[in-house]
């Protein structure tokens, strides 16, 4: 199946674009939406567009969301397209989430973990009742404050690792794979898998993560730790030769902890799945961690039978920009293909009718 080139239609296309722009603007009696409002007030939409657009820039993501009328896959698509216009200056030093300025940090496995638990700005304990007060533009009450505690907050995975209770990662390649530069081979290494999952569609990751909990490759996960906060980004410019801090980004990190029964040569330990997401994105980070753990099945000698354990399936379908491109291209003219199909169907029917008539004689 292939689509065909067509000519013409410019005037209709221009009119369609103009109508779309008018529709996007909405009721002219109401003030136009300023992307700065989206950046400030639709933060979770900005986080998701940045993650799936694979580009951290809150201002550009807010603009993309406004332009896409809130269609987040379209917004991510706009960001992906924009990033191709910019040169890449290099790579950051690995982000140090241990040194995150913590806004939220919870663990479902240790009640009393070093540094304690901090709920942060969460909706976890709300009743999901619509807040009609928002319609009146009511100002929220000021958030309470308390004296900041300066106790270190080590990562839960590191606490377990210190007791040798976590299976250590195998040694890494000198230079991590980059799926934006070279397609990963199959089976893909874990670094390439994490990069794919980090930009994967949140709904797809969520569904796959859910499937592992429901028995499709399950490995009984615990949310070892979820932390969210600002992390400094450091690079080493070639003319300086030392690291400089270029600003902060907000990240959500999730460590899922799963039991591992051990093998003849390895003691029983825990394994982990890892999720790292732009902004405040518990759901994305948790789903990513579940899928990351499921994709380790082969390395851990587990039977890989479930969809979430199949790297070729997961990575081949996680990217919603690729997916929407291939699904939506079906809208393009396929006149020639379909013409040949329709002729084939007519021919088959004619042959069948002839055969029937001959049989009747």
């Amino acid at each position: 199946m292939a689509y065909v080139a067509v000519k013409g239609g410019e005037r209709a296309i221009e009119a369609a674009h103009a109508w779309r722009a008018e529709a996007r603007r909405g009721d002219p009696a109401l003030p136009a939406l300023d992307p700065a409002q989206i950046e400030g007030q639709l933060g979770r939409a900005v986080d998701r567009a940045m993650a799936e657009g694979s580009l951290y820039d809150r201002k550009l993501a807010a603009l993309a969301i406004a332009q896409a009328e809130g269609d987040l896959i379209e917004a991510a698509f706009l960001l992906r397209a924009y990033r191709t216009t910019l040169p890449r200056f290099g790579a950051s030093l690995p982000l140090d989430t241990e040194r995150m300025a913590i806004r939220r940090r919870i663990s479902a496995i240790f009640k009393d973990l070093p540094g304690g638990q901090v709920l942060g700005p969460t909706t976890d304990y709300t009743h999901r009742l619509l807040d009609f007060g928002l319609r009146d533009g009511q100002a929220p009450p000021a958030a309470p404050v308390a004296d900041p505690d300066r106790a270190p907050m080590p990562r839960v995975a590191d606490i377990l690792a210190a007791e040798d209770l976590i299976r250590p990662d195998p040694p890494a390649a000198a230079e991590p794979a980059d799926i934006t530069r070279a397609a990963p081979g199959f089976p893909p290494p874990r670094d390439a898998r994490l990069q794919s999952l980090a930009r994967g569609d949140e709904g797809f990751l969520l569904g796959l993560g859910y499937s592992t909990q429901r028995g499709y490759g399950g490995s009984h996960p615990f949310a070892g730790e979820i932390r969210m906060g600002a992390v400094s980004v450091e690079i080493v410019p070639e003319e300086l030769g030392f690291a400089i801090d270029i600003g902060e980004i907000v990240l959500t990190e999730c460590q899922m902890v799963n039991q591992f029964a051990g093998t003849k040569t390895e003691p029983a330990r825990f394994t982990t799945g890892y999720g790292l997401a732009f902004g405040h994105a518990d759901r994305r980070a948790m789903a990513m961690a579940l899928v990351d753990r499921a994709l380790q099945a082969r390395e851990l000698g587990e039977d890989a039978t479930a969809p979430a354990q199949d790297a070729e399936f997961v990575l081949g379908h996680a990217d919603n920009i690729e997916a929407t491109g291939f699904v939506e291209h079906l809208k393009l003219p396929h006149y020639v293909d379909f013409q040949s199909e329709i002729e084939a169907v007519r021919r088959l029917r004619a042959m069948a009718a002839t055969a029937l008539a001959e049989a009747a004689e």
Partner: protein
Amino acid sequence: MLNPEPTPKTPRQSWMAVLARADAAAIADQLPPNDLLPGWRLLRGPEAGLIMLRGRTGGAGAPFNLAEMTVTRCTLRLATGQVGHATIAGQDPRHAELAALADALLQDPARHAALHAALIAPLAAGQDAAREAIAARAAATRVQFFALQTMRT
């Protein structure tokens, strides 16, 4: 709830971090007027580009490529010889140029003390206060859960 162990920074690394977190207007406000500054020549930029952000598997393991972020960078040389550099998150060429200019001026021993006091110290104090305000909100959500009888039998 603040960074538990900030890596010790050199003075230049510290002021560059403060300048990167400031905005163009805040830097411009505290720089001496142009006629009191040595001239400068742009060596590269200000130019927009990307940095590939790297994470670590499991937070502490092998590096992996996470996604990119936008940055703007600028390098310039003062007529007095100092070379200033800035790379800043986001897309603001004026911010990058002013940060590079301030970086160069701060390397001039004759200007350093006054400029640091007028520009860097107040910006750093404001940034610290903003961090503290977030940490104070986080502290108010610190929780002590009490585990009840296990629900599963």
